[in-house]
């Protein structure tokens, strides 16, 4: 049986890991390569790196970091942030990424997912979405959660999976940074619509939140940032705890 996955997410800006609350008020945390090593030793099942830099200089710094991580750590690496074209896929895959996560880039160019899946395979393409409840709908937001697209998020996910996205990361803007638990209602709505692996993001505040998450069989992985970065939750402890609760875990 497949183990459920625990995934720390590292937002990288100008070569440093940062993580905000409700997407605002970023604060500097640590060196991404050191953190990647730490998480690998703690038993993280995968690492996600988001490049939140805008400048070309920052972008080069990011690919350099990625190359250093991939030369040293041998678990799956997912990379996102600023992925808009096949050239962007190529750039990060050559530096050791295994999966590439698209968000606003797929909204701007809906053909991107299909083109990337055809070239690199479904397993390589991750559709990441920022979703918020609005007008009785799960609404898809773009640009880091700042822009309402007017698109129904669940329809968007179905289209993404049909186009070849091999995995979906669902980040609930409603629960992000609140640390009151994952958005189980939103996640269940997604699991009812797609058959690709689902990574839950946004809302993890303690170990019990992960135990609760994995009682929902359609969810494959839990992703979090600040609670891991601040060592509020240790991944090794979390995985032992979850196994104790009967969740299949790689220890």
């Amino acid at each position, binding site marked *: 049986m497949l183990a459920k996955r625990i995934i720390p997410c590292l937002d990288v800006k100008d070569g440093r890991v940062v993580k905000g609350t409700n997407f605002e008020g970023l604060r500097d945390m640590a060196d991404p390569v050191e953190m990647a090593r730490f998480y690998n030793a703690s038993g993280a099942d995968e690492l996600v790196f988001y490049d939140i830099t805008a400048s070309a200089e920052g972008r080069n710094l990011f690919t350099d970091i990625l190359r250093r991580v991939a030369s040293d750590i*041998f678990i799956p690496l997912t990379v996102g942030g600023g992925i808009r074209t096949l050239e962007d896929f190529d750039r990060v895959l050559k530096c050791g990424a295994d999966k590439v996560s698209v968000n606003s880039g797929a909204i701007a160019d809906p053909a991107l997912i299909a083109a990337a899946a055809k070239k690199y395979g479904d397993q390589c393409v991750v559709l990441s979405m920022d979703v918020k409840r609005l007008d009785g709908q799960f609404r898809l937001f773009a640009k880091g959660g700042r822009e309402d697209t007017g698109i129904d998020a669940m329809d968007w996910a179905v289209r993404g999976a049909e186009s070849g996205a091999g995995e979906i990361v669902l980040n609930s803007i409603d629960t992000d940074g609140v640390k009151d638990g994952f958005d189980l209602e939103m996640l269940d709505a997604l699991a009812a619509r797609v058959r690709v692996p689902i990574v839950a993001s946004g809302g993890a505040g303690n170990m019990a939140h992960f135990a609760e998450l994995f009682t929902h069989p359609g969810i494959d992985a839990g992703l979090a940032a600040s609670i891991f970065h601040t060592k509020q939750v240790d991944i090794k402890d979390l995985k032992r705890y979850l196994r104790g609760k009967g969740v299949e875990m790689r220890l």
Partner: protein
Amino acid sequence: MIAIVDYGVGNLFSLQSSLRSLGLETEVTGEAERLRRAERIILPGVGAFGDARAKLDATRLVPVLLEEAEQKPLLGICLGMQLLFDRSFEYGEHPGLGLIPGEVADLREALDSRRWKVPHMGWNRLEIVRDDPLFRESRRGEYVYYVHSFYARRCEDSVLATSEYGGVAVPGVVRRGNVWGAQFHPEKSGEAGLRLLRAFAEL
């Protein structure tokens, strides 16, 4: 020297880095002479079987691989493992290298319920069913990282280890003579994968 066969399929960055981290000399090559001179050969691969087979044919390395597989350890990884079998039914029917008896079929059709997702993606426990020098450094019940939608079947005599998924004992490691195959990615399976690669380098 471990030669990694370069036939334009997949990303070899992690495979090469993982071998390097073990202090092993590697070379990514598409040249027959270098494969002949290497002590060991790794056949990597991701993507679709038919496309990979066509690309491998285009390199004209197939006769060299068949010859060298008699002389030295060869390890196929993921799609590289699937290529070792007689044939695959991924989008039509395609001939494999015939180094290990068996065939490659759609995992979706073998699963016992629709609730199992395909690709089989993530960490799964590797159960060793037949001991082998390749497991010399492995521990029992280690988790390894899989990403695949097709699987090897009718290869019972060659199966060394399996992982259970949706009621199917998915062949994880196979062997016939000098030829080994791993369906999962040792270069992405953390310490468990590195132990396997180290054992391969010492065969």
